[in-house]
């Protein structure tokens, strides 16, 4: 087995654009679930409206920076629409409503009826070309060492993605260390305590939902811009669950936990994929498994890992067991 190649591929995946997008989605979930205790199972819906908000406005001629703002704005609007009626519900009900809304959005995005606006089942393509041409100041060439190198296009979107991750992580760090963070943590542990001190619990919940959703939308925008495509089949509910897995791997209610978690998630996904592929094509597993079994098998392992983590180490790599206990009384 070629261990070197496996590690390089894993590192590449851990630094890639999808890992950055997952990190953003997980940072958003961390604000909602980790700090505030809101169980949002529809995070992918925020990514979807971010991507479509950007793509639709950009393909109608709006300059890209404004289109990005439209994508974020769409996520804010979704957060308000979703939050105002549902945040009074209990955590598990909120989970069902949010996952239902995400599925509704995906069905609508791919519906024939809105094909003119959303591109139906194929989505919108090539809406962010100027991001890679005029906005990219990186000279042509390859950057990096050996197999771990990027061309100027990949480097640009990767840098932008991770810069957004860093910005959002810092923003969240500042917020949760401020009074705002202490109130949402109090809401997480017991709604009635901050309410009895005169805090508007509902307003804090809405703010957490909207902020987390907007950060998630950035992830959706990054993914869609990188692919130059808003294929509606990207935004399936499993995406949210993988983001959850990333968050729990890294550690709930920590600043860098979701970032580390997303990188570890992608590193593991890619290394498991490479190892399985070597075992299937050249190794002993070839008689039992086919090449098409590798993809599902590694996600079966993700499921297993999510179960075992949640049972035996719910605080992940960096988290504090007390935070988990506070969410889950």
């Amino acid at each position, binding site marked *: 087995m070629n261990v070197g190649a496996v590690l390089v591929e894993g590192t590449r995946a851990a630094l890639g*654009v*999808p890992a950055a*997008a997952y990190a953003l989605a997980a940072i958003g979930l961390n604000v909602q679930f980790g700090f505030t205790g809101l*169980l949002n199972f529809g995070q992918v819906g925020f990514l979807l409206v971010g991507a479509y908000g950007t793509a639709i406005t950009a393909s109608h001629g709006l300059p890209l920076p404004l289109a990005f703002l439209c994508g974020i704005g769409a996520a804010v609007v979704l957060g308000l629409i979703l939050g105002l*009626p*549902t945040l*009074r*519900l*209990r*955590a*598990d*009900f909120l*989970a*069902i*409503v949010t996952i*239902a*809304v995400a*599925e*509704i959005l995906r*069905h*609508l995005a791919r*519906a*024939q*009826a809105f094909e003119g606006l959303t591109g139906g*089942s*194929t*989505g919108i393509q090539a809406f962010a070309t100027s991001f890679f041409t005029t906005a990219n100041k990186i000279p042509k060439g390859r950057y990096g060492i050996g197999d771990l190198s990027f061309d100027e296009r990949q480097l640009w979107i990767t840098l932008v993605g991770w810069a957004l991750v860093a910005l959002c992580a810092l923003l969240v760090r500042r917020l949760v260390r401020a009074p705002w963070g202490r109130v949402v943590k109090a809401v997480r542990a017991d709604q009635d305590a901050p309410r009895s001190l005169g805090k508007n619990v509902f307003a804090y919940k809405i703010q957490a939902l909207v902020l987390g959703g907007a950060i998630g939308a950035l992830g959706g925008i990054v*993914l869609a811009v*990188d*692919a130059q*495509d808003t*294929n509606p*089949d*990207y935004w*399936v509910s*499993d*995406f949210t*669950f*993988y983001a959850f897995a990333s968050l729990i791997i890294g550690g709930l209610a920590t600043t860098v936990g979701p970032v580390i978690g997303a990188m570890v998630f992608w590193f593991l*996904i890619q290394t498991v994929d490479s190892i399985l592929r070597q075992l299937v094509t050249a190794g002993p597993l070839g008689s039992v*498994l086919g090449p098409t*079994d590798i993809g*599902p098998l*590694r*996600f*079966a392992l*993700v*499921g*297993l890992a*999510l*179960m*075992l*983590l*949640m*049972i035996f180490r*719910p605080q992940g790599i960096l988290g504090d067991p007390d935070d*988990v*206990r506070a969410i*889950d*009384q």
Partner: protein
Amino acid sequence: MVWHPTTSEKRDRRVRRHRLVVALVAATFGVLMLLTDRSRAQEVPTSSPPPAGPTATAPGTTVANGTAVVGTLTTPSGPVAGARIEVSADGKVVGEARSEADGSFRVPVPTGGRYQVHLDTATLPAGVQVSSTGRDTLDNVLVFTGRPQRVNFDLVAGGADGAAPAPVSEGPGVVDRFADLVLSGARYGLVIALCAVGLTLIYATTGLVNFAHGELVTFGALAAWLLSSSAWFSLPLAVAAIGAFVLAAAFGALQDTVLWEPLRRYRPGNISALVVSIGLALFLRNIYLVVFDSNPRAFAQYATQDAITFGPFRLQPKDLVSMAVCLAGLAATAALLRWTKLGTAVRAVSDEPDLARSSGIDVRRVFLTVWALGAGLAGLGGVMLALTQGVQWNMGLRLLLVVFAAVVVGGFGSPAGAMLGGLLIGIVSEVSTYWVTPDVKDVFALSALILVLLVRPQGILGVRERVG
């Protein structure tokens, strides 16, 4: 008075339970082994889709799929709207659509391959017919993956009396179409209800919102397929359905014994249990996909049947059987809950667990029973769903949210509410296709869920204090 077991009875039960657990583990592994061999032994000879389409950035996402049967229905006097086109493969319907106002239709199909395309002449406007008998079905239409395939139906104006065709903008038989939709909604709704009862009972007693319930539905369908239509077993489907019920119940009991019961002791929190159920769902679903492939499979029996007509209703005998089975399952569950000692214990535990425990009810046994019963019903629901849809690795996932909708609409934790909610959701989503294309019918089911939560968060039959 509640039954108090003596020490020797307890020991006997423990021994029996151990035997049961060992037997269940052995049976489940046996089934899994068979499944593994199976998927190697018989590759379905449909053309597999090439890895076309945009590169999937996110894991678990599917490739964009433009694979479809398309066409336009016109007569010399104008387009034909509202006619129903059905696409089937190996006798199993894989998709249907109604023609738009401009006569165009588009039926997405899962992969490339050979399909049969059927125009439902009963839905043609008065005075419009196919040019000659038998022209309403195109056998052997070859569709390539990722590309729409155009088909033509030869339509002529003029009925029996040669009269000019009626205005074609409106489809015929509004009553018939409505009756059809309500009936198929009721059939779908009863399946949803059967799956929802287990989900709601598990929630009511153990407090778990089980996101892995859909995988029990798939398990039942897979088990029935294995018992009735595989290389090793070719039992009659009726026997296989009973077998699927038993196997799914055993699977549920196994899950409760090895996973949920230890978890309740070790980490009693509803949210972490919920996340664990997500992990379990991901695990099982992808294992199904590895063991089977992504191709839908039909049962060997009852794949195609001639429809029979009752007044405005038109349905296949298997639909009738499916409805009867679901109704029987629901009635039996209701009777069990209402009139047996076990049912009383279940209701007591769901009302007030601590009081139930302190009055001597064996809560552990109630949990195990509810898991077995709920899983068995979900498995049976899977078989009934597969009668019309075929068996596929992700069928449970697709049903899960609709089942949640039914449970919430009816009132979370209320079995009667789950039955009512299932029926309502099924009819709402099917009837919505009268106005919208079938690809958005789930939107209506899920919107009903949200609407009910806004207006009456405890659901139709729920109890107020269940919602925090």
